[in-house]
């Protein structure tokens, strides 16, 4: 959505005379709980080799504080904090070892306070919001977007006149009169206040969370110190390194030969995804109606991951395996799919064994001697990989078969690979068409407002083909070595900075 001249003038006016009002709410029990969690965090922060149960307990306590300090849901809402997790807290506490008995006491008190809050249920943020919602639609901005789906469902039922927005969605909305903002102003990007799309902001925040905040000038950094710019860049880069490492290594069974270069894309909803940093790696993107790029109706495109930009909506599998092209291709191959995949895996498995036995460099030399013109380290690793279907040249494939002792099956395996390749191409075409149908029939206003939306895409007659369209918030410049099975799988980015 682009702005007309009149709307543009309204935006400039809003930037010059924005009114901000603040309502601070109190909650003695929640405040006490928060203090206990901060205390426990401080106590365990500098301890080397913190006990795993203590760590997990602390993580759960912090998540509770993080979630409910900025979203209008009853304390302990199961969509955010499951009943099983609450029950499990006691067990974690019992099993945990703490550096001192005082630490244990602090942790026990925090768990007790959490249980009391859940019993109490009532969240003053929600109560304050309910009082403000009258007959007109109310726009509500939240900084904590991890539980968007739960929020949408809950508010849709309890407060249907609340229009939920995230900071990244503000840029393109049409000018509105009022915006309600939950939490402390310093949780939000400065542009919420410096480039407003509204005349008034009403801040609703817990008293002890509120930080008085003054916007900085964009060009007003310490102008003579280029080191401050460098530090800012490094902080951005390092912020998610821990989360990436934890996610990438969470499954130790992967084959290290199957690692690729991946780049982190930070998504709406406190999520991230690692996408392959390769020209040939493609993803689907959705452009909502009247997008800036096309100016026409909604569209679906398949583009190189390297051309993604912040603000775009990338489609990722949220249920089922990450590679829906494979699933659709199998559907197209029908009853032959299992046989064809097995044949494919047969020669690839043998090739991987050869690599382990002889080493990549030696095998490359052997393949070249056998007449494989494109044999090099990268190609060899690709050919051994399940996601690469075949060599581009028959003679190269023939050389591989010869090395593997499968010469007599060369034609059979080549034809098999071509069938799979053809099925993959058709699958790509079908997926795009199916997606486009779904996108065109969907109400994409939610996608613009919340930066996230799910699409059901039946695959092989099952409802397992659930795709999510995620707004990209930022793109890391760092490249990581990532197991291929972790590519294109959204994961939660740990967010600790809300616990001030």
């Amino acid at each position: 959505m682009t702005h007309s001249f009149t709307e543009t003038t309204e935006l400039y006016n809003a930037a010059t005379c924005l009114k901000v009002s603040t309502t601070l709410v109190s909650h003695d029990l929640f405040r006490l709980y928060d203090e206990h969690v901060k205390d426990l965090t401080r106590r365990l922060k500098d301890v080397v080799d913190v006990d795993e149960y203590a760590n997990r307990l602390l993580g759960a306590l912090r998540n509770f504080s993080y979630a409910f300090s900025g979203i209008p849901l009853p304390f302990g809402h199961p969509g955010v904090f499951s009943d099983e997790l609450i029950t499990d807290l006691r067990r974690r506490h019992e099993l945990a070892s703490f550096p001192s008995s005082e630490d244990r006491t602090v942790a026990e008190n925090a768990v007790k306070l959490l249980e009391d809050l859940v019993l109490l249920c009532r969240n003053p943020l929600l109560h304050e919001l309910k009082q403000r919602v009258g007959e007109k639609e109310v726009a509500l901005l939240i900084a904590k977007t991890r539980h968007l789906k739960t929020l949408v469902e809950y508010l849709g039922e309890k407060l249907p006149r609340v229009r939920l927005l995230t900071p990244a969605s503000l840029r393109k909305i049409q000018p509105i009169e009022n915006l309600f903002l939950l939490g402390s102003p310093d949780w939000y990007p400065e542009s919420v206040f410096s480039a407003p799309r509204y005349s008034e902001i009403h801040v609703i925040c817990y008293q002890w969370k509120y930080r008085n905040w003054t916007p900085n000038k964009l060009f007003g950094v310490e102008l003579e110190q280029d080191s401050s710019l460098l530090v800012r860049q490094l902080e951005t880069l390092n912020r998610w390194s821990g989360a990436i490492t934890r996610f990438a290594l969470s499954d130790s069974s992967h084959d290290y030969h199957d690692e690729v270069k991946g780049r982190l894309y930070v998504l709406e909803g406190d999520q991230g995804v690692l996408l392959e940093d390769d020209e040939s790696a493609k993803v689907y993107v959705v452009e909502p109606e009247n997008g800036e790029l096309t100016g026409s109706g909604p569209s679906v495109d398949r583009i190189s991951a390297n051309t993604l930009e912040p603000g775009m909506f990338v489609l990722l599998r949220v249920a089922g395996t990450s590679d829906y092209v494979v699933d659709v291709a199998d559907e197209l191959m029908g009853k032959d799919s299992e046989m064809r995949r097995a044949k494919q895996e047969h020669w690839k498995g043998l090739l991987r064994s050869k690599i382990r036995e002889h080493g990549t460099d030696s095998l490359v030399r052997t393949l070249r001697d056998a007449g494989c013109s494109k044999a090099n380290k990268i190609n060899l690793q690709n050919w051994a990989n399940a996601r690469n279907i075949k060599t581009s040249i028959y003679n190269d494939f023939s050389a591989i078969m010869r090395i593997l002792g499968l010469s007599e099956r060369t034609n059979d395996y080549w034809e098999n690979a071509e069938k799979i390749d053809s099925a993959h191409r058709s699958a790509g075409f079908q997926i795009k068409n199916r997606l486009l149908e779904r996108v065109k029939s969907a109400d994409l206003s939610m996608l613009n407002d919340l930066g996230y939306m799910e699409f059901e895409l039946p695959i092989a007659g099952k409802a397992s083909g659930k795709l999510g369209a995620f707004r990209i918030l930022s793109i890391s410049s760092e490249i990581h070595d990532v197991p291929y099975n972790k590519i294109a799988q959204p994961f939660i980015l740990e967010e600790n900075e809300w616990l001030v």
Partner: protein
Amino acid sequence: MNEIGLYFQSKTTYTTVPEWSQFLINLGRLSSQLSQSAKRKTRIGVALPTQSFAAAFVAVGVVLDASQRMKSTSVVDHFEALLRLKRGSRVRILEGDACRIGTIAGQEGEGDSRRIKVRISKGRKSCGFEWFYFGNCDGIQPVDESSTNGMAKRKRHKLSKNEIFASTLLGIDNISDFGMVSTSDCLVVTQSNRFEREVKEQFLAVRDEGGFHRGCLQDVIRVKEYLPGGHAYHTSVLTSKEMLEREFDWGKPATITVFDGALCFLKTSHLIVDSSWILLLDKSAPCTNDAVNIFMQEYLKRTGDIDSDLPKAPKGVEILGFLR
């Protein structure tokens, strides 16, 4: 105060364009003036509440200033230049408030009676010739070959669709020079087709004794890519993708390059070093901070300051300028 003399249509009336539009036009003007007088290139960064219409109005300011300096070449030099054109070269021929495209068919005569023969197509099967002497050669201008794609040779086209609008805004009586001669005053690097919609939207007007006369920004800035082939232009537009993907023949760089947004700047600023910059940033856009970081690294290498020369920014807008 409506120093620009520009109005916009608001429901059923015309209202003076707001302060932010006037600021952007003045910014374009000043930047163009500074780039003439300063020996080094200017770098100006502006942070705005929205990207909408920013590049369009800045481009207007640049072209308004540059048009004041369109040199009147001496008739002698102009005629000699025409004589040097090769056979088959395309030329624009002024016909009142319109022009037509012709091709050089040769030269005739000697000394003071030299004349240039121009072939003109006037219909499907008809063509004719016209001759231009020293005395009437100001009615013919060479066409920049880079703008000849899609050119309709036969068609006679008006120099400007909204001539009163354009000439009033430009402050000139006769639009023929402006409409006949191409110049590279401004290059706009943008990501989207928003810019095209903004410059073509007919919501503006100027006022004279006859009342309000409508027009659009394209009437003034004349973006080459939005004009039929052969029309004189003063602005070019490129997407960052085009700049990166193809081998771009820069020729003479534009005087001013306007980066319409953070992403354009991040992707292409390293390609544009021989032009003064105006970087327009939407405070609410992603990557704005990254663009500011790069811009500030330029600032740290500045060779002079120009803050005192810059127009006063309206509230909510930040501006920083320097020399490189």
